[in-house]
């Protein structure tokens, strides 16, 4: 299948250097990535590997220092506006106004995507029904549980029917039940809408359970790539944890299982 359709996400040599007073920091050093329509691509790596910087570049929030990328079939550097219209981005911090009611956040997000007032309301109602937020519409976002918050944040990311959905560390801080629910939700979004999902994680079990394909990054570089099963086979490892150890020489800094 690969190579038959142009990839929705195609990244070559993407890099980012931060110039700090203490000297340059090479956060991302020439990353290559590709994902096809409907693929769940996991970017796995320890904290500080450059995962968030990579996602922020691909989501048009941070200009790359080098490299090029096609995101949602549009050139990231030449046409960031077209990219923004076709992606969803859920930051680790979420981006919710704590005092704003759930329903209003959803409608406003539609308006920011230039839907009419009426169309925004329709889309908000659709998403609320789809993501099980209907009973929470009047509630301020600060009163939501961790799992409910994440569902709302993902709903906001889906308002514009994105071709690519970026999820940065989507389950950090969630309890095991909410994590499992969120995995189901991500699979369902891909299944129902053919959305390409790029998610970053430092949880090996999450990468194993959710991603069709993994890119392992360490110190700003891709150090391995493949399906979870392929990575285990290649390194003669029984678990992804062992494979990760073989690849990077160390464990991720958080337990693989919760």
């Amino acid at each position, binding site marked *: 299948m690969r190579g038959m359709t142009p990839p929705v996400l195609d990244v070559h040599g993407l890099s980012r250097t*931060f110039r700090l007073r203490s000297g340059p920091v090479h956060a991302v050093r020439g990353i290559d990535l590709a994902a096809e329509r409907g693929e769940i691509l996991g970017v796995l790596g320890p904290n500080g590997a450059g995962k968030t910087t990579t996602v922020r570049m691909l989501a048009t929030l941070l200009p790359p220092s080098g490299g090029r990328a096609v995101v949602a079939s549009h050139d990231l550097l030449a046409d960031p506006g077209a990219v923004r219209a076709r992606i969803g981005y859920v*930051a680790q911090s979420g981006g919710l106004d704590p005092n704003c009611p759930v329903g209003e956040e959803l409608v*406003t997000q539609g308006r920011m995507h230039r839907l009419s007032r009426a169309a925004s309301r329709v889309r908000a109602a659709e998403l609320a029904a789809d993501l099980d937020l209907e009973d929470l519409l009047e509630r301020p976002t600060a009163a939501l549980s961790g799992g409910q918050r994440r569902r709302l944040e993902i709903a906001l990311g889906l308002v514009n029917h994105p071709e690519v959905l970026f999820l940065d560390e989507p389950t950090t801080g969630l309890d095991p039940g909410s994590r499992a629910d969120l995995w189901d939700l991500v699979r369902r979004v891909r299944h129902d809408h053919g959305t390409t999902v790029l998610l970053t994680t430092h949880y090996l079990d999450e990468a194993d359970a959710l991603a069709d394909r993994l890119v392992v990054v360490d110190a700003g570089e891709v150090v391995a790539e493949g399906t979870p099963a392929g990575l285990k086979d290649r390194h003669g490892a029984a678990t992804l944890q062992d494979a990760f150890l073989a690849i990077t020489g160390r464990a991720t800094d958080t337990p693989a299982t919760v």
Partner: protein
Amino acid sequence: MNRLLADTGVIFGRSMRQTLRSKTALTFGMLQPLLFLALMGPLLAKVDLRTGGSSWQAFVPGLLVQLSLLGGMFVGMGILVERHVGVIDRMRVTPLHPAAPLLGRTLRDVVQLVVQSALLVLLGLAFGLRAPVAGVLLGFVFVGLLSAALALLSYGLAMNVKTTPEFAAIANTTVLPMMLLAGLLLPMTLAPGWLDGVSRAVPFRYTVDAMRHLYLGEYADTTVLTGLAVTVGLTVVALWGGLALFRRSGRTP
């Protein structure tokens, strides 16, 4: 251009709803000038401030400029919170015009501060202020322009500092000398020559002087026209600066 207007409208609506939800912020913002009006204004009732007219005609315009100055300068606190929780980033990953998050919020601040000013003037009437209606209404134009200028600069600053205390320190140390030097509470007509001279370097001085003339029923003298020119000039510079600072913050993490 139409896009920019429509997008600014969306952010204005969102910001206005935020404001209306937080009733505490609305009252607290007004508290300080209200206290000055009620607890300091009466002290001046029999004092000749050498501005012509009653002391209320000099004092209330000063309080209105103080309200714009304090209210405008600290709006950045709100965007700092939103920036830290990722609301600004979420807006930036939409097709929204990049200037709309700044302009929509600023427009909300202008509306809020003009409404608060109107309430303050009404209370002033109860205390003994008498001024021509046209002058009072024209005064609100100055309040609106000044509020816009300060809000734009405040947001620009807030988007480029690292922490909230850093922002508060910069805002506080700028506002107090400005307030005193502009002659907001007591006019510079009472000042010795050197202080009057220094005060001419502060743009708000011209705004408040112009408003005091408006409250005396003088609508087109040099003071009013100079005040208008300086206030419009400040707003244009602040618009340019605010937009540049806002854009800059999008290029750095």
